[in-house]
């Protein structure tokens, strides 16, 4: 189960488990998390939890709700997010789902499963993985081990090439000789469409050049490429559609 760690000016006040679908935060006594402070609105914010996801929503509060320093209206909570309401801070800790011993292997992680019936009605059963596992027994086997969050969730966060150093192409001949082209994208195409085109791909392992179209294949350091991707090294000279250019790693 996910939880919030409530603190004021650096000292921890208490832990609040997100054990209800909807947890209200505000100044009034009716809230699940009551904060008696004039900077906090009567009903300030709420957290809705569905399966393993918790959503924080500001309920039109006067002074706003911050997550990691920026104001939000609605936010899907990630492990270690810090919510700020008035002077209070709440750290969101992701649930660590215990695997049923022996039944779960790494392979079961994140497998596609069918959710039957309405989402709301099904949710508790799916999380407990108890009675209603007829559709897919693996329904309980979706752990979110602490620390794996960053690697698991955002495919976009682990963009390829972020590990690769910056590189650029400088034209050596032709009308634009001397011009430099930074390889800022994962894919950069070079050449003339319809005549000869090659693509440079940025991958975690480095930069690769591949022939895309045209009767002639590109030449690297005087050697004609085959149809396979070829790794580029610093100061390689590429010849393409009659133009020479140099590949180099930027420091």
């Amino acid at each position, binding site marked *: 189960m996910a939880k919030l760690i409530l603190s004021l000016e650096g000292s921890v006040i208490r832990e609040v488990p997100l054990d209800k679908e909807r947890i209200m935060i505000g100044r009034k006594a009716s809230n699940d998390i009551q904060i008696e402070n004039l900077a906090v609105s009567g009903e300030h914010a709420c957290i*809705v939890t*569905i*399966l*393993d*996801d918790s*959503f924080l929503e500001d309920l039109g509060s006067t002074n706003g709700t911050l997550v990691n320093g920026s104001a939000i209206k*609605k*936010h*899907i909570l*990630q492990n270690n997010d810090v919510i700020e309401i008035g002077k209070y801070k709440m750290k969101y800790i992701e649930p660590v789902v215990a695997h049923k011993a022996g039944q779960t292997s*790494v*392979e079961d*992680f*994140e*497998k*596609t*499963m*069918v*959710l*039957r019936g309405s*989402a709301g009605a099904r949710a508790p059963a*799916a999380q407990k993985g108890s009675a209603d596992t*007829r*559709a*897919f*027994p*693996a329904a309980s086997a*979706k752990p*979110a081990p602490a620390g794996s969050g960053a*690697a*698991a*969730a*955002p*495919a*976009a966060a*682990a*963009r*390829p090439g972020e590990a690769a150093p910056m590189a650029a192409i400088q034209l050596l001949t032709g009308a634009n000789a001397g011009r430099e082209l930074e390889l800022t*994208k*994962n*894919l*950069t*195409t070079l050449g003339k*469409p319809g005549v000869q*085109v090659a*693509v440079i*791909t940025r*991958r*975690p392992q480095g930069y690769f050049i*591949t*022939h*895309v*179209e045209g009767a002639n294949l590109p030449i690297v350091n005087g050697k004609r490429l085959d149809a396979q991707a070829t790794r580029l090294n610093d100061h390689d000279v590429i010849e393409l559609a009659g133009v020479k250019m140099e590949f180099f790693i930027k420091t």
Partner: protein
Amino acid sequence: MIDLSAAIEIASATHTGMVRSHNEDTIAADAEIGLAVLADGMGGYNAGEIASGIAVTLITAEMKKVLAQRPAADLSDAEAQLLIGEYAAKANAAIFQAAQTQPQYSGMGTTLVMALWYDNRMGVGHIGDSRLYRLRGETLEQVTRDHSLLQEQIDSGMISKADARFSQNKNLVTRAVGIDPDVETEINSYAVQPGDIYLLCSDGLSDMVADEDIELTLSSLKANLALAAEQLVQQANDNGGRDNVSVVLVRIVKDFPARTGWWEKLKSWFR
């Protein structure tokens, strides 16, 4: 029969990915009859690939038989939609039955996305979270809408599209082939244009590679479809390859109108 292979070009790639031990995706495409099918199986042991295999094999074989009698290019929207619905239902029945009668297949199922090209149009049927995208000009658009919990959350405004990639609930589909005795296939028809590129993919691509990167890859490599397919799979794997990755790319090379003249129709009667 009319051969569509002059009008459409197809390239495909499928890969186990970097984490899974086997590939439960199945793909098939046939430019002659203008058909592409992709299924992402699920269920323990090897049942996932059995389910996706049954769906794809059954649909392609049956479609081939029917379209040999009745060329796809001549179909109307209603006829194409009927065919898609009929064979998706047959695949559902076959998988459901196998799962019911053989304990090792119990609980297996699969997602499905299929497209049929006819008369300058395309019929699309899908169930689950396998997708069809269209690149027209430089713009990529998602044509199908997932049958998943996450999509329902996006639709109800609970989570924004931009936040969706951080969701932990990506893997829950609300519809699948072979789980229940009946299944509802979502079927739509669209006009196609020469130059369009269609992408059928499993969630192993769409979860691992952002839409902008798919768009960049397709628009910069559209001259070389096979390379584009390979490149997409490679990007998914470079990003972690947490699931099987499959892509089918279809390029509309030129128009393929139905034969409308009376003489053409008469001629086809006597063949």
